[in-house]
């Protein structure tokens, strides 16, 4: 895990989660904008995955368990996909909250990943 990528994505995921809660309060239905936000969260996770694979191949290891770290990334990658899938089949304002929950869940999982990696 690379610190700067972590910082950028963790705060981005929190910000997107809060904006999506705002969208939900404004009673907006899922749109290309809200789906684009969750796609950005997913893209960030892919950056984490690829950059982490590169540093591990380069010889770096997590302070905690490296396997647990990657298990977290893989499970985290499912969260935005699941939320987006939900928003696509159920186009109500509640799905916007589901997207928000997904983004905030990713932020929490990133914090845990940071803890596993940096100790």
């Amino acid at each position, binding site marked *: 895990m690379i610190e700067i990528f972590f910082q950028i994505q963790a705060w981005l995921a929190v910000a997107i989660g809060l904006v999506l809660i705002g969208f939900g309060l404004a009673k907006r239905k899922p749109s290309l904008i809200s789906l684009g936000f969750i796609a950005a969260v997913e893209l960030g996770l892919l950056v984490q995955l690829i950059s982490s694979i590169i540093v591990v191949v380069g010889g770096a290891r997590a302070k905690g*368990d490296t*396997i*647990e770290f990657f*298990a*977290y990334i893989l*499970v985290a990658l*499912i*969260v935005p996909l*699941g*939320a987006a899938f*939900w928003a696509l*089949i*159920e186009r*109500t304002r*509640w*799905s916007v*909250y*589901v997207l928000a*929950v*997904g983004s905030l*869940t990713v932020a929490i999982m990133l914090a845990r990943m940071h803890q596993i990696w940096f100790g």
Partner: protein
Amino acid sequence: MATTKRSLGIGRLLIAAYAVLALAATGRAGYELAAKFNEAPLPYSLSIFSALVYIVATIALARSTGAWRRVAYVAVIIELTGVLLIGAASVIWPEAFTYNGKLVKTVWSFFGIAYGFVPVALPVLGLIWLGKSKKN
């Protein structure tokens, strides 16, 4: 997913929260089972059990008609009992969860403190929602 009237609305958020907890507990249990089950069989068995209960509760709440409703009630009540019993046991009797001098935690330890107490809040909200949606 069935789009009955009962399952629409704010109940959706509850189901989403359950899905997240099911995923978290399953991920944790899967890792513990694969990497270190023999180190602490009791807490890790509890992790697996709680993960299964969350999966069943998520599916049953998402369906929440007919027999699924009863399944949802049972799962939510088992979950509430589990978090209260294990939460209390982890406070009163920590030796039961201590292996090689180290306290091993479960999803339900200390009433789910590691998960922001979501594990103790969700079954209560689940019961309220199941009770309310019946009247509609």
